[in-house]
């Protein structure tokens, strides 16, 4: 009986000490971690707008460049409707992937239709297959395509590899049909959301 009591007390004290150590560390690191995360987010947006950054730019430089040049449009700045740089637009696109969430950005030219760049900066798709969506080889296929048709409806389609033609079609990655379907869904959803916020 006595030894079981000691076991319980030992467990409690150890748990408490571990929790204290972890909380203290997390609190101590928090400002730096959050600055890193913010700079990372801003860097992705700056890259979509093709705004050059110095090699090895520090967090403050990235944040300053972003705040100088980019406007956040939308009521919730953590989850805005879109970003604007001069007449260029970047729409956040996110949704479920095959294994985990996919997050990306779609850059639009001043006409609000033609795609200037696409990036998927967060994804956990199958390496070598769906994971290739993050690579330039795939994202470059979107450049110059049109996100909306003449009537303003989302029109971009990801089609079977090698079948893409015209302004509205992009080749999928062979062997990654399911990931391609998810990417299609999140691009369409982002386009619809953008249209609805724009018309308001």
């Amino acid at each position: 009986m006595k030894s079981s009591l000691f076991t319980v007390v030992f467990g409690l004290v150890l748990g408490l000490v571990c929790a204290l150590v972890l909380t203290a560390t997390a609190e101590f690191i928090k400002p730096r971690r959050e600055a890193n995360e913010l700079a990372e987010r801003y860097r992705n947006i700056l890259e979509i707008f093709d705004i050059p950054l110095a090699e090895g730019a520090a967090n403050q430089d990235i944040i300053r460049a972003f705040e100088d040049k980019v406007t956040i449009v939308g009521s919730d700045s953590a989850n805005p409707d879109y970003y604007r740089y001069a007449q260029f637009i970047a729409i956040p696109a996110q949704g479920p992937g095959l294994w985990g969430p996919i997050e990306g950005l779609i850059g639009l030219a001043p006409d609000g239709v033609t795609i200037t760049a696409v990036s998927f900066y967060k994804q956990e798709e199958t390496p070598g297959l769906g994971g290739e969506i993050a690579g330039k080889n795939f994202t470059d296929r979107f450049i110059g395509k049109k996100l909306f048709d003449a009537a303003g409806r989302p029109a971009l389609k990801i089609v079977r590899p090698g079948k893409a033609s015209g302004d509205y079609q992009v080749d999928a990655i062979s062997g990654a049909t399911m990931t391609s379907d998810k990417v299609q869904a999140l691009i369409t959803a982002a386009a619809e959301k953008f249209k609805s916020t724009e018309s308001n």
Partner: protein
Amino acid sequence: MAQSPVPIGGPTAKSTFLDGLWANNPIFCQILGICSALAVTTRLENSLVMGVALIFVIAMSNLAVSILRHLIPRRIRMIVEVAIIATFVIVFDQFLKGYYWEMSKQLGPYVGLIITNCIVMGRAEAYALQNKTALSVIDGIANGLGYTVILAIIGASRELIGTGKILGYEVLSGNWYVPNHFFIYPPGAFIALGLLIWLIRAIRPQEDDSSQSGAGS
């Protein structure tokens, strides 16, 4: 396991150190810690940071377990060990996220997975529970170093063959060297590690290999 003979009168600092680094190296002798050795060795820098993480975690967890070794109730000793290990791993992970963001992104989940690295818990069970505090810390550092050295060799050879670079600096000129990307993909890791273990076992003095234990993660 190819246990080196323990000197009469218990392990000394020197025997403990050499044991972890070479005679009973966690990777090529005990075949432990293989998952991370395969996963993070695409570049030398990643391998080194992972090695530092492991040295820190084993040394600290061995220290804590050894200090508490007369207090830890036997029935919950494994839970206690895991709690201690997990705490130090998360501390290191947070440190990377704050001060070494790029590396933290590249290592991804593998820093957190040190919690389940057999080497760390193996040393706590096999050494820190029975030995004095100072020796346990030496044992932790030695095993971490043994792991780091092997990872560094694999990381350097994969980076060199796969990209022609070492630590990002071009070593084999792109003018005549065609990088073999195969070596930075996962299959290349298996081949590099397999060759290295074979090589080391071939040049080591022969020991009794009949009682080799199975693989761990």
